[in-house]
């Protein structure tokens, strides 16, 4: 695989890591990132019994798992632009792991809501989903993640065919928007945090819109 992107003169001056990593180096890189991605969970699992999660631990767990879901969704969406800008094509092979981590933290987030928040009160949960727009949209975002996680394996890509698979996985754009709106609608008054996530997402989506437009007009 050749490096297709033309590096700018300024970028060429910097010593860049190779676009292609040896299998051993890549495996190590991936393993390190895999372990790092468990950090947020480790903090909760270790912090809860040691009383390190603040005055309201349930709130900390709910917020932390929600925040990290959004972070991993945005990280997944950053892979393509980052790859283009840096020429590190091996990044593409981390994307599935990042996406699955987004789903993993979303599952924890949902469990924290169903268990710690509602204590398995089915009626209250259904009422929430129907009545509270921020929960409706958050739940919708989670529901969209399920088929993406299920079809994340190589076998599924093969079975579906690349074209169908790509079409289905465009859902990530919709669920990312739903995720940010979910955050935006739930804050009491100060929208700074959701606005930051919104801006990053806007940038990532705008990048795709521009490159799609260029491709078409080229």
């Amino acid at each position, binding site marked *: 695989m050749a490096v297709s992107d033309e590096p700018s003169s300024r970028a060429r001056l910097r010593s860049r890591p190779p676009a292609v990593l040896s299998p051993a180096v890549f495996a190590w890189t991936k393993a390190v990132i895999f372990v790092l991605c468990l950090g947020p969970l480790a903090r909760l699992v270790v912090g809860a019994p040691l009383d390190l999660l603040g*005055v309201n631990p349930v709130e900390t767990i709910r917020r932390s798992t929600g925040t990290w879901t959004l972070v991993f969704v945005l990280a997944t969406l950053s892979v393509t632009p980052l790859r283009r800008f840096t020429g590190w094509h091996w990044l593409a092979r981390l994307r599935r792991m990042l996406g699955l981590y987004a789903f993993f933290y979303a599952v924890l987030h949902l469990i924290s809501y169903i268990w710690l928040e509602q204590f398995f009160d089915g009626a209250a949960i259904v009422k929430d989903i129907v009545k509270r727009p921020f929960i409706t949209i958050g739940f919708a975002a989670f529901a969209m993640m399920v088929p993406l996680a299920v079809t994340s394996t190589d076998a599924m890509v093969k079975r579906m065919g690349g074209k169908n698979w790509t079409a289905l996985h465009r859902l990530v754009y919709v669920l990312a928007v739903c995720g940010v709106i979910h955050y935006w609608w739930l804050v009491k008054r100060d929208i700074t945090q959701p606005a930051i996530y919104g801006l990053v997402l806007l940038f990532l989506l705008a990048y795709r819109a521009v490159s799609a437009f260029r491709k078409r007009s080229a």
Partner: protein
Amino acid sequence: MLIKRPGDVRASEITPSRVYLRRREFVKAGLAALAGATGVLGGSIAAAQGGAAKLTGIKKSGYSTMEQATSYKDVTSYNNYYEFGTEKDDPATYAQKLKTRPWAVVVEGEVKRPKTFGIDELMKFPLEERVYRLRCVEGWSMVIPWVGFEFRRLAEQVEPTGKAKFVEFVTALQAETMPGVRRPVLEWPYLEGLRIDEAMHPLTLLAVGLYDEVLPKQNGAPIRLVVPWKYGFKSAKSIVRIRFVEKQPRIAWEKAASNEYGFYSNVNPEVDHPRWSQATERRIGQDGLFTPKRKTLMFNGYGDQVASLYTGMDLRKFF
């Protein structure tokens, strides 16, 4: 024989109020026999003490709840005081710069004798301990041993006229000490209000202390309102002006989102916040991670005392 004079007793040797306040638990736990060891216990907890000045001559009150009080640490490190930031730990971090001396509270409006009270004068009102439940509109609750005096004791001194139908509470706005007011999260200064009969109710307290000590800054020093049957935001902090008025004031949260926060804001498990249920609450520091939330009580459990204030009112409409 060595007789220790009071001056010889270091602050760290005095059993902190939150320890002796919970002395009955120790007794219940069968630790009475170990009474001699309480000094040791006290000494080990002293490090966590706020170290604020001690208040003396405090009477107990029949209005206090017997429920277990929330720990001093939790009461003083998990606060909503948006002038210092919107995160729960912001007030404890940033409020320490708040200038609480000199401090005066201007009492004016529809009163016969308007008066400005210096903080030292206010501290001389006969102080009582009131252990009240606090229910935040966000769905959590605490039990807090406030020290203060009934608002009506102050009102008696200024003699409200017949035109005084409402009371407006204006809180401090110190741009130089309050990082949160740089952004228009709410309208500054924060404004709250009560109907005159709510304000004059014996449960309505002006608090100057907490756990037998001077009120910490993050909790609204030097003087704040406590209205235990309403959501926490109704209990304005760091009050500088009290106005008796004829018209219902538009309070800060009403201006920010009138569909979500009403003037009355009585604790009511049957009237949901548009975005979350108010039927249940989590008691800070006492309900474990896997404990279901407890049921929220009408008027936060103060219905026997205050329900009559709202006879014939549609509490869904006047939320």
